[in-house]
């Protein structure tokens, strides 16, 4: 896949930081505003997809290999499962929102709602890396390569 023209590259340079910032905002404020882990994760994955479409797969290949999309996705799902068993480790049941019970933050502030923002962050990492690794597998992987 080759890159596109200079106009597309310049617009991509301007847009990508704000799209990435919006994705991170949507993930972090998932328990306060519309959005959450899935929407924010897809936004982050779309930002990297835009970079590959604009600059072409050959140029971005060395950078994309350093990002280790598959490993990041595994870390995300592992984090989610670990958050769910925090309740078990503390002597209650599975998926228990123990942080909200013992240390409830002020409602409608960023640090509130216990494990819900932590779950959102884990889902955001997992979904973003998953969609990006599917795209990158379809786009750049050649014979005998591993991501």
């Amino acid at each position: 896949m080759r890159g596109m023209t200079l106009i597309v590259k310049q617009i991509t340079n301007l847009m990508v930081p704000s799209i990435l910032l919006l994705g991170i905002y949507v993930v972090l404020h998932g328990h306060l505003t519309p959005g959450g882990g899935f929407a924010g994760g897809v936004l982050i994955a779309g930002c990297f997809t835009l970079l590959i479409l604009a600059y072409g797969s050959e140029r971005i290949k060395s950078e994309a290999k350093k990002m280790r999309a598959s490993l990041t996705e595994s870390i995300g799902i592992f984090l989610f499962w670990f958050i769910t068993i925090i309740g078990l480790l503390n002597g209650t049941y599975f998926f228990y929102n123990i942080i909200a019970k013992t240390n409830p933050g002020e409602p409608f502030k960023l640090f509130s709602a216990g494990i819900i923002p932590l779950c959102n962050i884990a889902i955001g990492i997992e979904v973003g890396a998953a969609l990006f690794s599917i795209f990158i597998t379809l786009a750049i992987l050649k014979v005998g390569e591993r991501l």
Partner: protein
Amino acid sequence: MTTLIILTILMILGAVVALESKDVLSGIISLGIIGFALTINFVLLKAPDLAIVQIIIETLTLIILIAAVLKTTREETAEKYGIKKIVLGFIGLVFIVVFIYSSIKVFNHLPEFGEQSLRMAKIYIDQGLPLTGAGNLVAAVILDFRGYDTLGEATVLFTAVVGVMAVLRKVGRKRS
């Protein structure tokens, strides 16, 4: 309510055009009408969470589909009108009539649009903020009351990515 009905009719028309058009690219673009009209429907029904997810996913899938079409063919292969197609069309027509008849009967028993009919939903709406502390009630439902669903969903996505990578990889395969 009128806007919803107009948008729904537009979605059905877009689906028909996408099925019937000879050019694959215009078919995909009219497929996009369905997704974006659905986004406006979600906003009108006051579901911004779904609208955000819908508009992002729709844009990404449209980009990937258009990229795939531009790399392969644009002309759809023509089909002949034989006896098989007439029989299949007749069966489809019978199914549509039965479906519309039974859905009219079912919709008469449903509660009015926007009225709450489930006792669980009332508990969620009243007790969501004090029980979980999350300002966004949707997040409270999908990650606290109904957390197992989300856990399974994330695991299914992980499994799907593992499957895609296992199919597309070339390492460890025997040479044909």
